[in-house]
């Protein structure tokens, strides 16, 4: 029993950081949206890391899940808000739809794309993402390029005050919950049969297959988990929070690259990495945008280059090497 708990020790620093962020946002005036932005980066990094960190597959099309999550929530609210008796139920429906769409996409992509190796997989996913965006616009489904604007529908069915609370607090709060959940699942997978199987895949996929590891099954499971978490973040942080969705604003590969940057800054395949990466990325961008609006990216880019040259394995990746065989070892993974 004790052993079981010990293996979850690395969650302590992660959850502690989230808790501190939450408290700062909750009690300090004007900080909430900023910690929400940080939590958004952390949650995405953590979710993306589940699949990439464990299999070594880089999913460039990850934003597809975030976007589909946003669409799930938007469709749920747009089409079900007319049934007044559903009340808050429309958000649950939205979340279910988000999960459903993302699961569908994840299973389809997994069935086809996971047969591909390395960069082929990565970029095949970009193709799917772009294809999907232009398909929505071209075939004029889900509102086409005009998108869905549902803030009004939400206000009508739930009332102004409730919606204010939902969009500016609960949507962000749920991102925290998703981030924590992602950390937990990541830890759980790392320390279970799935984790060992996937480590084998990462090291040598063919050998793992010969040894009788059902690689496809585990890969699909990790892919699905990662995708669903991303969809949940999208449903909350982009769907519920912003009250509208345009295909051209959500199916944007730039966000996948941001996920990758967050993870790499912190350290790929580590648990604490995405959190630290998210904080570095989000804080420096936000802060620079405030002290020197218009020039922040000019300063931000060299900072990233310096960090990556100094810590090629990411901040936590390097730290992990340092704390080996010390008392801290069991907390940092």
């Amino acid at each position, binding site marked *: 029993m004790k052993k079981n708990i010990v293996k979850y020790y690395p969650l302590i620093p992660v959850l502690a950081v989230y808790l501190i962020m939450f408290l700062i946002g909750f009690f300090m005036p004007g900080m909430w949206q900023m910690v929400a932005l940080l939590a958004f980066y952390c949650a995405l990094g953590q979710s993306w890391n589940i699949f990439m960190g464990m299999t070594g597959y880089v999913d460039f099309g990850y934003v597809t899940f975030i976007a589909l999550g946003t669409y799930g929530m938007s469709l749920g609210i747009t089409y079900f808000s007319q049934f007044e008796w559903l009340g808050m139920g429309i958000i649950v429906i939205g979340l279910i739809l988000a999960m459903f769409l993302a699961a569908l996409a994840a299973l389809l992509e997994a069935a086809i794309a996971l047969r591909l190796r390395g960069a082929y997989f990565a970029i095949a996913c970009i193709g799917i993402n772009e294809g999907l965006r232009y398909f929505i616009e071209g075939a004029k489904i889900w509102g086409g*390029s005009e998108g869905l604007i549902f803030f009004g529908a939400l206000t009508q069915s739930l009332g102004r005050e409730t919606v204010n609370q939902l969009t*500016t607090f609960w949507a962000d709060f749920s991102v925290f919950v998703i981030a924590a959940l992602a950390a937990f699942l990541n830890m759980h997978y790392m320390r279970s049969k799935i984790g060992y199987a996937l480590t084998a895949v990462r090291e040598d996929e063919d050998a793992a297959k010969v040894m009788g590891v059902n690689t496809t099954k585990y890969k699909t499971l990790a892919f699905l988990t990662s995708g669903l978490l991303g969809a949940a973040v999208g449903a909350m942080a982009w769907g519920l929070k912003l009250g509208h969705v345009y295909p*051209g604003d959500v199916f944007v590969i730039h966000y996948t690259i941001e996920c990758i940057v967050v993870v790499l800054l912190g350290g790929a395949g580590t648990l604490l990495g995405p959190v630290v990466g998210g904080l570095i990325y989000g804080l420096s961008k936000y802060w620079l*945008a405030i002290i020197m609006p218009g020039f922040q990216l000019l300063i931000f880019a060299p900072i990233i280059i310096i960090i990556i040259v100094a810590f090629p394995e990411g901040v936590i990746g390097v730290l992990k090497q340092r704390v080996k065989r010390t008392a801290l070892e069991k907390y940092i993974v």
Partner: protein
Amino acid sequence: MKKRIVLLVIGFAAVFGFLLATNALAIDKVVIGHPACLSGKYAKAGEQAIGGVKACIDWVNNVYGGVLVAGKRIPLKYKYYDCESKKEGVTSLIERLITVDKVNVVFSAYSSGLTLSGAPVAERYNMVYMDHGGASDRIFQQGFQYIVQTIGPGSKYHVGTLNMFDHFDPKAKKIALAYEDSEFARMTMGGAEKHAKKLGKKIVFMRTYPKGVTDLTPLLSDMKAKKPDIVLGGGHYEDGQLFARQMSDLDINVKGLSLVASATLPAYYKALGGNIAEGVLGPSHWEYGVTFSPEGAMKVGLDWIGPGQDEFVKLFKKALGKDITPDYHAAEAGAQVLAYVKAVENMNSIDQDKVRASLGKLKFMSFYGGWDVDDKTGMQIGHSMVDMQWQKGKRVIVWPLEAATGKLIYPKPKF
């Protein structure tokens, strides 16, 4: 171990604390907050908007003497951040503006999407949210109570243009509509379609092209085959340049060509190397050369506030420190400052609800033209557009006739 965690906590607290400490509290000034787009895809419009706001603030403070509230002239201040033209940036910056910088009014970022992204936060804090960059009509159907629009609604852009063509050549019946597939441009297309049918025109071609496309050849070839008299289209900047350029490449000569957004910018003529842009029209909220004046305002019975046109241009150049001519993005952002000042003075208060109510009732004229919003939704209804045409490298206002600074060249010269 514990020590390290404590250190970590202190570290974070220090960073956040520093963020807080960089603020100053505002007491005897009125502050305009703006999550501007200084980088990213809307950087151009963002720069113009900042210049326009700064120019008008300069005028209010130094020429006008400040905002008159409770018998005291209070200076205007301006606080802006850069949202990088991204939706995640807008929300946190608006909250910071409201809670930390204690601004008295928030101006929206450019585009309908970014305006919508920020609206829930502004609503949450019951903050007047003035929209000078989101032209979608649908923003105003969402029940937001604190939003007020300065830019005209998208559906109106090509209505005047069609009237103009109908006035000069009622026989030109075949209209082609080819717009960018974006919220704003589709809105314009819808409005144009409706109005063209009302005028008894025949729409021979109606298509959209995706945002960010770099080659319009297939669409334009298709359009060429339909032999239109008049082509209306466009969306943003780069596609508007591409549109005219590739029409010339494919030798598609029509009697009239009007493109939204891009054609009215000074850079347009230069980018197309002159002769391709010659004769191209564009609907505009404001152009250098429109003749709104205090006397004109008096004639139609409206209050006048703000600098004259030349004064505005001078202040604009001074604000940006660059020799560029303001376009309508600058003018509408500037006019928005004047609208706010007027609304505050009329109500003699900077209380959010009172200012919002005052804005609803406000009717005035400035160098930008008329300003009047629908009280309930906040949608702009008082501003009418002009149509400009490129003539020998100059932007000439050709419609409406009472505002015209030159005569329409029709049919348009061949490419």
